[in-house]
């Protein structure tokens, strides 16, 4: 099929950037969206132009490296599908397609379609772990975990950290990402000891990284290629309230003792 593709081109973080229109010829309907961009890049190289930069690695929907807002929807808006797994059979011959990078204050563009998502790493570093040094673990079966709980932890842990939730949110909020990580750990007995501290630390880091607030649009849930449910946000909010209450109680106890 032949397509008209409008692509965001931006030399670097300082450049203003603009949409550029390309004609792409002879795209196979079995190709993935990224393979369509490969074909376009081959055509650009043949003309002596610079290739379009876009992030990708596994090309099977698991690494979370690929991004792209396609016709206004992160990952193109198909259920449970990342851009690398989106196939051209979902487009029509002659169609016009708009391709842009994630747009969010906390994810600055570094070139063309690539953005800087290090803000996510900062949130995880603030508390997205269970402190367990190598060598100190009890036997794997020492603490039984009910199957249903393990399954729900796995549902939340399926997050690939791609950032589609942030890109979809009108406020650029990272609530779904943060809440999914918290839900994964807090569904498991191993996650309990640091529960309050973890919740506070990650929420604080999220705010500090420049993500917006959640105003309950739930575009994030619709855009998530891994079906993370908005329920995790409710769980996080409850935990956060508890954690900050607990914090105040501790402070007042400390004052009383003094």
């Amino acid at each position, binding site marked *: 099929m032949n397509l008209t593709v409008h692509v965001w081109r931006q030399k*670097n973080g300082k450049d203003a950037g603009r949409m550029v229109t390309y004609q792409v010829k002879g795209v196979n309907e*079995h*190709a993935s969206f*990224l*393979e369509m961009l*490969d*074909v376009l*890049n*081959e055509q650009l*190289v043949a003309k*002596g132009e*610079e*290739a379009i*930069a876009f992030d*990708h*690695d*596994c*090309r*099977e929907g*698991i*690494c*979370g*490296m690929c991004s792209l807002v396609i016709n206004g929807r992160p990952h193109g808006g198909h259920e449970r599908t990342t851009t690398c*797994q989106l*196939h051209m*059979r979902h487009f029509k011959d002659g169609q016009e397609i708009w391709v842009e990078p994630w747009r969010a204050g906390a994810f600055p563009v*570094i*070139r063309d379609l*690539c953005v*800087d*998502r*290090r803000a*996510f*790493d900062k949130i*995880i*570093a603030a508390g997205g*772990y*269970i*402190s*367990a*040094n*190598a*060598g*100190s*673990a009890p036997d*794997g079966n020492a603490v*039984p*975990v*009910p*199957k249903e709980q393990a*399954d729900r*932890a*796995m549902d939340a*842990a*399926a997050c*690939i*950290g791609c950032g589609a939730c942030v890109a979809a949110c009108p406020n650029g909020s990272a609530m779904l990402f943060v809440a999914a990580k918290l839900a994964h750990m807090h*569904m*498991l007995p*191993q996650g309990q000891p640091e529960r309050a501290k973890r919740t506070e630390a990650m929420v604080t880091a999220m705010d500090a990284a420049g993500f917006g607030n959640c105003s309950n649009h739930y575009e994030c849930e619709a855009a998530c290629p891994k079906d993370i449910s908005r329920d995790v946000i409710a769980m996080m909010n409850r935990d956060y309230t508890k954690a900050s209450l607990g914090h105040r109680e501790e402070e007042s106890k400390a004052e009383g003792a003094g």
Partner: protein
Amino acid sequence: MTINLDARIPTGPIEQKWTKSKFDMKLVNPANKRKYKIIVIGSGLAGGAAAATLAELGYNVACFCFQDSPRRAHSIAAQGGINAAKNYQNDGDSVHRLFYDTVKGGDFRSREANVHRLAEESVNIIDQCVAQGVPFAREYGGTLANRSFGGAQVSRTFYARGQTGQQLLLGVYAGLSRQIQAGRVTMFPRTEMLDLVTVDGKAVGVVIRDLVTGAISSHAAHAVVLATGGYGNVFFLSTNAKGSNVTATYRAYKRGAGFANPCFTQIHPTCIPQSGDFQSKLTLMSESLRNDGRVWVPKAKADVGKRAADIGDDNRDYYLERKYPSYGNLCPRDIASRAAKEQCDDGRGVGPGGRGVYLDFRDAIKRDGQAKIAEKYGNLFEMYERITGDDPYKVPMRIYPAVHYTMGGLWVDYHLMSNVPGLFVAGEANFSDHGANRLGAAALMQGLADGYFILPYTMGNYLAGLGLGPAVSNTHAAFKDAERAVKTKLDTICAVDGKHSVDSFHRELGNIMWEKCGMARTKESLTEALEAIPKLRERFWKEVSVKGGQDSFNQTLEKAGRVADFLEFGEMMCKDALVREESCGGHFRVEHQADGEALRDDTNFCHAAVWEYQGDNNAPALNKEPLTFENVKLATRSYK
């Protein structure tokens, strides 16, 4: 010059070697650990676990990866599971059995002592991962669940749906993040190691390119760990992530590290067949599917065009069950792949070009119900349908072998140190544990064993031997020379200014490798490849087009550097395959077979072939580490 291949295997009975050697190792005083700087290249299971654990011990660690976050290393893509000799199923598993299965599965081309240690540490890995919050599959009673994988008759594989690698890597990444926050690991994402620096024969640091700004910088350390994964992408099409490459290990090879068994590559039997020229990678369908899926082709060539549903049981050839009755569909990968190729070569393959066999769940669905099958494999079925448009609950999957894993890698001794002192190599990047064929669910085990439980000991032993002095400075002339060479090479690539894309050369190389050094190799095919590759390389350096220069974010340049290395490395692989005049594991020389099965030659080839760089214009020198088998008797593998 020949290189020192003393493997430093501890003496004593195999069950005691690791315990004894841990006790014999020198220790670094806790107060002194932070004075030692360690560079880790790679943040996958091996590198990420090593970086986190070394930092937990108190060392000062710098970790580099080319993705935008350490959480995206290629380990994330592993689907099926991780082995451990827990014997939770009470089905006769033990450390010894895991050791035995892995040595046998590797077709007697791995090092016994390393494999035994791997089996010993396997049990600690599961404990560690559970403590970190890895959501492994559970039974209703709350205990850990297991499944079977190829090459084993016990159920010892732990898994997290079809996303085991993802969950293990997220555990590693969490631990790594904790150390980053604590200031003990400095993380450098979107960077690429382009050279190893040695002074007085020791590894003292690396030259790094910042992939965003293009800046070249030198980083010095007391020791360097390479955990940069495998080189399957030399074939262009593989199940590896697009960025997986040989650059770090190949450039270390050019600085004196021996490269062992480069021709040992694994072709995985169950991948989605290629569908067109535009294709950029192949997708694996986890081996775990062979637990319930039955592999077959039509008995008669006349039936290959028919719909699967129209071919009755009598007219189906369940060839793995027929040829290998005791292991059936769960025979090892090398055997299953070759068998699939055989059926297709015989004209009984299905689908476009006759390059496919069926993996059929009809009987399993009938037996267990669709819900049960969906619970086990739902995400894999969905992935298959998304890519092919076919629903595997209704029609059998079509699969074909594809390049998946590389057993070869930089040579390391028992301490995971290469022949270059101070250069350690972990995970898929080294060569030691899987011989000529890796068993399913054994790579995740190896990466984590190396990173969590082995390097932390052997690294201390090396550093303690260095004394307390500071690392060589990164302003040393050796760093400046290496930086200059790196920049010149990048400029040279950009200056070619030809007309052909980097990918076009990579595809062409991949074709040569697949056709001539793939599932079946002959003296003739390898000789042809050895003529074709240098010609292709010459054309690359005359005709490749890389726009944009080296001083900016330039993905084309990144790729070009990697392809340039593959174009040299592929030649070494073919040489290695040519001189190994035997068949073993994934290395099948057509000339050496008995009844269609691989025919090993233990008299002449019971060794690791270790290649030593001799300059760009000279052929590499071949060194050998003899392999001895004292605990698993050398025998012809049989899965019948």
